[in-house]
């Protein structure tokens, strides 16, 4: 698979979040950013295709529609 390199500038707050997620998900920062891209594409394409993406609370079954703006 071809690889290309880029430098990513993040604010302290963004880097703290990346550190925290990397720690809690047990993934490297690179793997985490790649997974974030895959999920972002998956969600935005569904919405662009007219589908709706929901988050459901298991206790109440209350659904909240996920909006990407």
């Amino acid at each position, binding site marked *: 698979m071809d690889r290309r390199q880029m430098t990513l500038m993040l604010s302290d707050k963004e880097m703290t979040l990346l550190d925290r997620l990397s720690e809690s*998900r047990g*993934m490297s920062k690179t*793997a985490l950013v790649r997974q974030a891209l*895959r*999920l972002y594409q*998956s969600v935005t394409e569904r919405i662009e295709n007219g589908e709706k993406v929901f988050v459901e609370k298991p206790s109440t079954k209350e659904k909240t529609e996920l909006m990407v703006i």
Partner: protein
Amino acid sequence: MKEFLRTVALQNRRSKEFEDAQLYRELDQKNFDDFEQLWKPMLEARRADFESWEAAAEGDAQDSHWHWAEKAVDASTSMADETYAIECADETQGLMLVTSAAFARLEIQRGREIVYIELIATAPWNRPRLVKKAARYKGVGRALIAEAINLSYQLEFNGRLGLHSLPQSQSWYRDVAQFTDMGYDDEKGMQYFEVTEAQAKAFLAND
């Protein structure tokens, strides 16, 4: 673009010998043609022996309606989706579609990233219930699942995997592969199985 990954061994059920097969990431026109011209006529003929989709499980022909070409084209534009093919004796022996935009349900790994197998199929001539004693190759499904687990490792998901199973495959996932049976999923209308990190390691160790 179709990419050769590695050689895998399939057992020829007739000669009992192992034969080299080629595992590829991404499907191409050859795989689509094999499905349309070789797989589909056999699957549809067998499917016609049964009145309902549920009954077709007996003949291992419940996937006759799967649109591999359409799925593969969609997958090629998505970062989260991957397709795989196994070829042997110049024919497509197995196909698989997976997504990495999925999360685990099993309590010990709930919410963690998994590779989810959307579709997996071995060629109709490899299915003992479909062609009886004439079945050709054994090991196609195992090789494809091993590759899905490999992808899970590459993505740093530590082997975690999920899949829904057609009725005829449930006992293999539960009793042979030793995956966790999470029961019937009403939304999908199929049994749901999940693979933990330990189960993934054990599966590859037995591969």
